[in-house]
């Protein structure tokens, strides 16, 4: 069965954050952020990623600091969301 595009975006996001905060933490933070933006994992689209990144940033910064959280969420927007400018 093919993975949904939303699930694919979540896994790609987790993959990007994993080396800093760990896979389980990344998945937990992303799942919470998805809930907060009023979306579901399966229904997540690339256009939701900038909002997701914005919601995710405060939680990420408590693990890796403000600057790195900014860089990670920018990478998320560009590499996962396909947004060229932050």
């Amino acid at each position, binding site marked *: *069965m*093919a*993975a949904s595009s939303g699930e*694919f975006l*979540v*896994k*790609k996001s*987790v*993959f*990007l954050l*994993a*080396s*800093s*905060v*760990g*896979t*389980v*933490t*990344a*998945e*937990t*933070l992303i*799942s*919470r952020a998805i809930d907060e933006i009023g979306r579901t994992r399966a229904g997540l689209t690339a256009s939701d990623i900038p909002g997701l990144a914005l919601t995710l940033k405060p*939680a990420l*910064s*408590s*693990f*890796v*600091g*403000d*600057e*790195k959280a900014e*860089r*990670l969420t920018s*990478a998320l927007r560009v*590499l996962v969301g396909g947004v060229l400018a932050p």
Partner: protein
Amino acid sequence: MESIDKATELPLPSSSVRSKYAIWRWAALTLIIAVEVTFGFLVSSAFRMGWGIRVSVCATLACAAMAMAFLSARSFGRGQTARRSWLMIGCLGVVDTALFATYLMPGLSAAQPGPVDAATVERSGIVVLVGTALSMLSRFMLAYVLWKTAATYRKTGLKFHFHRRDYIAVLLLLLVATVSVVYSNATMRVQLPRVVAQAPNLMAWFDVVEIARLVALACCSVFGVVVWRYATEMGGGLVAKAWRSVLLYAAIYLLRFAYTGVISHLVTNGIPSAELRTAYVLGLWALILSEYMLFLGASYQYEACSSTIEVPQELDSLASQLHSV
């Protein structure tokens, strides 16, 4: 092709390329071993010189850990728990090393020939007492840091399962803490024989400080196991490595305290001390190892806060893998 259902099943970014941070960690370990081998075995140095060299090794590690912990703290915004936590963690190694160094004060060593003025002994004893009190306070600081960190991680929604082995770990740590405090009395009397003889009033204060330390160590043991559990359940990553290293630092330091206490108890009970010198050296190695763990912890957190983002090479293959299922 097999599908990937959970994030925990994802292939982690390749670690085949060593980061510059890893090179520094290995360099520090190599330097410590080189110094220990040179001055511990090849050169039969006097007690004070050997002690001094080990103080220098600890001081180097503590200062490096402090610098990285402070830089990590600066990455967090004002008012954030992690900022305060890493500022406090940065001070721990320096306090430990300062306490270690106070034993170099004049008039304390039993190896020093001839009589020593009572005022000198008392002055040096007070310096050691202040160092011991600071060390005790640093354990309260660590307990506070661990408590606040556990609370922060709970707020982020990280799952937490306290297993039976965690309760056993807490009980074991409490037991070790109690042993260290019970025998600390013997440690002080073996390491400060002149203070015992010439300034006995100070020894009562040492005992009071050690009892306060037991409370701090008990708190550290409970919160330490909680944070260890959180770090284990993070699913890897640099932040988890940082916390595990800091907790190992605390555990090794505690074990070293208990170990030195037991050895000192044996000495005061008249057991021949020919082999006990080696045993004391093992205690010193444990101290250096604990400082190294603190250095590792600070370096992992610094790397987590400051490293550039590595786009995993596997990201494209992951994409094709997921599209092809």
